[in-house]
């Protein structure tokens, strides 16, 4: 093996483009690599396929035979059922979109202002305040004292604020934002000061425009967190017209809530109303926007991860 490798040195990057015969080790490596990564990618994809396939199957087939990798029948009944009385889904969509938009924007404002202040090297208390914020990730009172604070002392039970406030500001996002802003040269701030600009004006006119990649990354992290949040609704929201999308899906999956559909129409037609397939259809409808946006936003997340990883 070693002898062969010496005979045909690997053509990794030096011979990019030129067709030089690859050595045995490289061929083995490529075969393993392509196979393994294909398998992992497929495993990442299969659960989606199962849900989509399940949502398009005929309810009778599921009841008599169960969910399948490749169903025999195709049926749009589940989607028809969802969209003939879509009020509940639309309502949940509305709640999720509203909470996501409000929370992301407000969170971005607070995070960027805090990050800016902590990135200012002439701000005396920046290290103390950084630690004050960072400490909350090291120690916490736990779920229950926090819950009692939210409900008993702030009265946020069944309030939209209970969905907006918990994910609003996080120490990690502030640190990430501070690190983004630290890379802006001091001279920019200094020259603006000489021109007589105040601290807030510097933030708004200079720092924010220069931080758009950071803002995009953190804004998307926030938005994703809000969109996927079900936990806060689970502990705080009691009236079902305030359910966000993921929580409605959770309730439907656990059969604690039945999607209000026109079951009456099915009684006459002698067809089984979709129940199991309906769960899958709602899962598809709730996840759709994420899948559609994913190709466009992926790069911002990758950027956020790599910067966060390098600078902690």
């Amino acid at each position, binding site marked *: 093996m070693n002898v062969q490798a010496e005979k045909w040195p690997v053509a990794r990057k030096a011979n990019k483009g030129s067709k030089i015969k690859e050595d045995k080790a490289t061929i083995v490596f490529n075969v393993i690599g392509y196979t393994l990564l294909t398998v992992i990618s497929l495993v990442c994809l299969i659960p989606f396929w199962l849900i989509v396939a399940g949502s398009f199957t005929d309810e009778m087939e599921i009841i008599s035979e169960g969910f399948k990798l490749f169903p025999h029948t195709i049926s749009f009944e589940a989607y028809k059922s969802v969209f003939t009385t879509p009020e509940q889904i639309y309502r949940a969509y509305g709640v999720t979109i509203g909470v996501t938009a409000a929370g992301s924007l407000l969170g971005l404002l607070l995070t960027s202002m805090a990050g800016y202040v902590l990135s200012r090297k002439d701000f005396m208390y920046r290290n103390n305040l950084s630690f004050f914020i960072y400490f909350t990730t090291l120690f916490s*009172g736990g779920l229950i004292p926090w819950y009692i604070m939210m409900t008993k002392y702030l009265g946020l039970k069944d309030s939209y604020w209970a969905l907006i406030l918990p994910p609003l500001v996080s*120490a990690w996002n502030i640190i990430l934002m501070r690190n983004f802003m630290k890379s802006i040269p001091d001279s920019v701030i200094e020259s603006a000061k000489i021109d007589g600009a105040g601290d807030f004006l510097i933030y708004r006119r200079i720092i924010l425009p220069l931080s758009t990649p950071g803002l995009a990354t953190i804004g998307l992290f926030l938005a994703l967190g809000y969109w996927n949040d079900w936990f806060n609704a689970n502990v705080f929201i009691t009236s079902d017209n305030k359910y966000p999308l993921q929580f409605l899906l959770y309730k439907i*999956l656990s059969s604690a809530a039945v999607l209000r559909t026109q079951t009456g129409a099915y009684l006459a037609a002698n067809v089984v109303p979709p129940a199991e397939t309906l769960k899958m259809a709602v899962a598809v409808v709730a996840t759709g926007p994420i899948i559609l946006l*994913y*190709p466009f936003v992926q790069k911002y997340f990758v950027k956020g991860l790599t910067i966060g990883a390098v600078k902690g």
Partner: protein
Amino acid sequence: MSEKRGFLKEFNKNRTLFLMIAPTLLYFIIFSYIPMIGVYYAFTNFNFDGGLFGSEFVGFKNFEFLYKSGILWNLTKNTVLYNLAFLIIGNILQIVSAIFLAQLASKFFKKTAQSLMFLPYFLSWVLVGAFVFNMFSDLGVVNTMLKQFGLQPYDFYLNPAPWKYIIVFFNVWKGIGYGTIIYLAAIMGISDELYEAAKIDGANVFQQIRSITLPLLKPTFILLILFSLGGILKGQFDLFYQIIGNNGLLYDATDIIDTYVFRSLTVNFDIGMGTAAGLYQSFFGFVLIMTVNYIIKKTREEYALF
């Protein structure tokens, strides 16, 4: 006195900056610092009318119960073992994926694989619950297949055994893209010259990986492992709750500190006991992360958290 004057001077100089960070500080005071006082519940026999200081003080009785009943041991064991499994299996798969992604030639393949692997990270845990339902319920894909092969259907909801693997699988599944990207970034930071030199010396691709990539990934690996060890008492609530839910039959094998605390709050209404378990987790978690940070500071100061 002089310190106070220093503060006032600084405040007057940077009033705008103070105002800009004030909402965030207020946020952390209200939602993080004040609730810390609430750990006092752990030492009370909590009743809702009494509130924070109106409940009967019972000292360490809640902790004593958690310890003597064996609950604490079971919760700690489950939390730590699951996290170890996540950590080891997750990191190995992430490193292997990153190494292959970095070396393979086809750009299209790399991009597609990376996108598909990162996709689960974007999905809600509720959707993971939907997968589990689709695969493991009575009508699930697994049972359909068993029936097709003429085997007896398997009732997953009555048997704790398979859930350990299902939980580990979905944790690894959701995090593989995330970790791969971090390791990939570390590999991309390795200088090309090293590989060129190795090639001239006749090293094949496996030898290059063994003697260049792996040793240079070691610091990133150790750092990530250490930080994860610091958080080893923190459970993945969403994962366990969406997969197991409130199925009491499976608790022995799948109950972690976070699910126990959650149930104390929402099912058993045992505020004192739940807060005690939460405080136990917070306290030892704090000790662990401080220890880890101390070790990192001693060895590679630039990577220390604070």
